[in-house]
């Protein structure tokens, strides 16, 4: 294999939605991410894989400054969204998190109605001029999240009364409702059964291209199924980043191969 260092930085065709350069993350004295440079492309779903504790979530949280909420966390290096430095003092973090939405491992709907869960973001960001427009956003978002058919007759029921898989799709609808550019998903299916998982994967497939998507997953088959680019992390470093089809059939690095073939520790 040639040029794997260059390969690590490139994100495929087209100009990158987000770039990261020489990113380091420290929790106090402990370094959790070591000099990671990666691009995230609009046309691709990017998967982050790697053993537990390798820093996937830490790195993902850098992309919308969720690490700011952890007092001992310190991030260095450069991260841009559409060429704009997201760590610059002029960056509005609330605005940033609307542009770079996040879906967590455990579905976390607000204890409000299904409608209000989805309408929440558009309301605080003033995205809808009136009731009709808000209704419209809620419906479109639920449709994109593949949930509309199941909830359209019970929009005023509590979001927490839905099944786990439905709650996760509600959270995705909530992220979509503010019309983000990037959606970060941290193990979004780990609490779901295979059918609910398949629905989320189908939904990722449906919305890809409209949003840049980055997904952290422990499920190798899931990474292979949903992503076009895969990044393998190990002990805080980026070991390999390339085409998903290549990573899973013919990885360049032995560490990647050992991990994805189940020969790891």
């Amino acid at each position, binding site marked *: 294999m040639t040029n794997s260092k260059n390969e690590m930085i490139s994100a495929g065709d087209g100009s990158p939605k987000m770039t990261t350069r020489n990113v380091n993350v420290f929790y106090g004295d402990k370094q959790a991410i070591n000099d990671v440079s990666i691009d995230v492309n609009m046309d691709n779903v990017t998967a982050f894989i790697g053993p537990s504790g390798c820093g996937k979530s830490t790195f993902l949280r850098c992309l919308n400054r969720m690490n700011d909420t952890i007092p001992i966390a310190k991030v260095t290096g450069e991260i841009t969204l559409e060429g704009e430095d997201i760590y610059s003092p002029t960056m509005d973090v609330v605005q940033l998190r609307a542009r770079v939405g996040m879906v967590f491992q455990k579905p976390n709907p607000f204890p409000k109605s299904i409608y209000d869960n989805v309408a929440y973001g558009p309301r605080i960001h003033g995205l809808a001029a009136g009731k009709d427009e808000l209704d419209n956003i809620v419906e479109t978002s639920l449709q994109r999240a593949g949930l509309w058919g199941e909830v359209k007759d019970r929009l005023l029921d509590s979001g927490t009364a839905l099944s786990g898989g439905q709650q996760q799709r509600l959270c995705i609808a909530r992220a979509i409702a503010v019309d983000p550019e990037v959606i970060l998903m941290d193990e979004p299916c780990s609490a779901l059964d295979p059918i609910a998982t398949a629905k989320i994967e189908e939904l990722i497939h449906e919305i890809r291209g409209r949003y840049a998507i980055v997904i952290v997953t422990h499920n190798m088959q899931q990474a292979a199924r949903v992503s076009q680019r895969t990044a393998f992390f190990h002990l805080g470093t980026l070991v390999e980043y390339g085409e998903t089809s290549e990573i899973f059939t013919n990885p360049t690095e*032995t560490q990647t191969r050992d991990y994805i073939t189940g020969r790891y520790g």
Partner: protein
Amino acid sequence: MSPTGTEHTVKAFDSDINELRGMVAEIGGRSEQAIAKSMRALENHDLVLAAEVVAEDKLIDDLEKRIDDLTFQTIALRAPMADDLRELIATFKISGVVERIGDYAKNIAKRVPLITQAHSLGPISLLPSMSKIASELVRDSLDAFARRDADLAMEVNRRDQIVDDFYNSIFRAVITHMIENPKDIGEAAHLLFIAKNLERIGDHATNVAEMVYFAATGEPMPERSRGDNPTDLLDDALSDEAD
């Protein structure tokens, strides 16, 4: 926790893979033996030995099916990735190719009773050397699989040219013999088919070698450049005679 490079965390996966490798070695050994026996039967006009080769082909067929079943099951249950996936796909394809090699040996054995005047067919003297190389290719391609040896696989691919050259010489010699001895045409035709079977065995060993190369490296084997071959067109007309 550190990468071990060899064993899987799930040990049962290794035992499936080892069982498959054992079966591939066995089907390879059996087909190699079938070639040797069929050639011995031909040289000695030994009809009993020829019948044995035909009967034993059933074992090769059964083995192919068992390999395919276990490969299929392993892929379904273990969802292999990277070199594991490549090896299992190669195993699946190799078992089919080796089974075909067995069929060619069987086809040679079936012709043994039809060649009664071996002593008068001059070109037959080239067959033992040709079959020796063809079986070497079969053995080496399967050794390459067992050792994941991409270099040996390349070597098999290269040496297949020798088998092709033998075939071309025999082809010309047989045609000449037919012209000079029209009464031998029937038996000489069988002789030509036997040479053709050996030539196909060489090609199949090359196919195995190509899969070994892919399994070992993840890349397709670089093409061997084939010189223009005067008998290619006639070859197509003769086509595959094996069953």
